[in-house]
């Protein structure tokens, strides 16, 4: 391989924990040979805040703000998973309006999250302009959320049995307005970034995740779909009535280089934003009447039982394992983070590549350290 020409002196290099391209505080111990990476050892835990210990010491609804703070880019989706798991424990059914609002917010949040992911990815690779376009659009989604519940990042929106606020008057129209002007931006991203020669060169042949690796490491979400596996929990194990919506599951096709490359993962996210727009439109069209606080229980006290529940967040399959001993506080809350599982695959896919490829790979798997370290 031509990479071998860049071999040289061996040394150990610490990348991070404060490196901007590591998307948070992640330290990578690189064993380099000239420009070639011989081994990568990820060191995580810099953002460990004992989420699971905290959760064992507060009541069920009190855990929700902590969930928001795990994956702070996609808080709506995080708290949704937890609320659904507790509702499953209690055997609680929510009304249609709550379900539709949850889908609406989860998809808006997915767009915001993918925009951040794509924008920062482009910047890591060295293209600054897409970042500005993405953040301009993301800002509009955050404005909608701020109008909805007062917070821009950490919403505490999905409660057990309902949501915190019904949508304000005029929210629907504003969301439609956002959608109308956002739709062309996706096409713009294609022109600006997707088929850019330099971007393709940097990503299309790098960081290949094979199907077998993906399954063994339990890689989920856009990263799994980038490897060509059409697997989306919204389709396979629908929650919140996703089975009644029409949408497609975009997968990587390997159009530019081998299947499962960084570019495939990136492009799945672009296509997913289109699907999310469709879902938001359908949710707005049907929005049934109802009281969003109708099913909120006065006391959340599930009977002695346990459940493992998973949902599809922008980063993949987020699982909550809840154990209840019949009390008012959870006996055990375990979080299976999608970023945690995909990061464990990093050494396998980064070995033998160039140092600069590490940046391309980390950006493409879209990790949030807050969720990995919990």
């Amino acid at each position, binding site marked *: 391989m031509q990479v071998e020409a860049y071999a040289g002196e061996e040394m150990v290099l610490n990348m991070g924990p404060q490196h901007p391209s590591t998307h948070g505080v992640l330290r990578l111990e690189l064993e380099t040979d000239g420009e070639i990476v011989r081994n990568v050892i990820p060191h*995580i*835990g810099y953002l*460990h805040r*004992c989420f*699971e*210990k905290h959760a*064992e010491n507060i009541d069920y609804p009190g855990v929700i703000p902590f969930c928001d703070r795990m994956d702070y880019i996609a808080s709506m989706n995080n708290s949704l998973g937890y609320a659904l798991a507790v509702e*499953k*424990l209690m055997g609680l059914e929510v009304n249609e309006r709550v379900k539709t609002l949850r889908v609406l917010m989860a998809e808006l949040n997915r767009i915001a999250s993918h925009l951040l992911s794509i924008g920062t990815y482009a910047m890591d690779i060295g293209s600054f302009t897409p970042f500005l376009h993405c953040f301009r659009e993301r800002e509009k989604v955050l404005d909608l959320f701020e109008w909805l519940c007062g917070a821009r990042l950490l919403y505490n929106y999905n409660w057990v049995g309902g949501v915190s606020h019904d949508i304000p008057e005029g929210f629907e129209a504003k969301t439609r307005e956002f959608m109308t002007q956002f739709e062309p931006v996706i096409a713009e991203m294609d022109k600006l970034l997707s088929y850019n020669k330099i971007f393709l060169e940097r990503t299309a042949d790098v960081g290949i995740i094979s199907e077998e*690796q993906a*399954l*063994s*490491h*339990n890689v989920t979400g856009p990263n799994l779909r980038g490897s060509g596996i059409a*697997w989306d929990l919204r389709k*396979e194990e629908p929650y919140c009535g996703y089975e009644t919506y029409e949408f497609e599951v975009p997968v990587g096709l390997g159009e530019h280089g081998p299947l499962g490359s960084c570019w495939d993962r990136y492009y799945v996210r672009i296509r997913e934003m289109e699907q999310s727009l469709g879902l938001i439109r359908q949710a707005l069209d049907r929005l049934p009447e109802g009281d969003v606080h109708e099913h909120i229980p006065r006391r959340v006290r599930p009977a*002695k*039982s*346990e*459940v*493992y529940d*998973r949902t599809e967040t922008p980063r993949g*399959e987020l*699982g909550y*394992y809840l*154990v209840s*001993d*019949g*009390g008012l506080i959870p*006996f*055990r809350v*375990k979080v*299976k983070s999608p970023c*945690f*599982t995909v990061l*464990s*695959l990093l050494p396998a896919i980064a070995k033998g590549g160039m140092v600069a490829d590490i940046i391309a790979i980390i950006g493409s798997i879209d990790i949030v350290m807050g969720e990995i*370290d*919990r």
Partner: protein
Amino acid sequence: MKQASEILQTLQEQFPDQIAKSSQECLQPFVVVAPGAVAEICAFLKNDPALAFDTLMCLSGVDYKGSKTEPERLEVVYHLFSMRHRHKMVLKVELPREDPALPTVEAVWAIANWHEREVYDMYGIHFDGHSDLRRILCPDDWVDYPLRKDYVQPETYRGMPAAADKQFAERAQEGEDLGTDPYQAG
């Protein structure tokens, strides 16, 4: 797709002595297996074409000390899923709280490596045969296992205070004058 009862039956035929108990009356049916046999059973579950549990969704530890309903023990819980057949299963291993150890399943699912490191880090459960059993979230020289129910938070870590400051409410309850009452201020 197989029902939980069918999967359980297959397991009982294959490993008659290793199944301690099982339950199908709960939300998600589970099987409790002997600690020593867990690697063997997992390998069977993955490789048997009719079961084909190709995904380890989650691997968690649970400490049942202080539970009102359960006897005191440690538990390792495996949530398995088969993407090929779309069926699920929960496998549990019960361990004593003193010197808990069981074989690793790293060779079956690669992701178990990190999950087991986390369980070791948080509960001190030893996974025999693990290739790299180090702490993962806490620093290497951290003392004791934080998610055990009888964990006591250290006062200091490397000379730095580790305990959180008392909350205002706590301090007020202890009778400290915080000077925040507008009626007392004057």
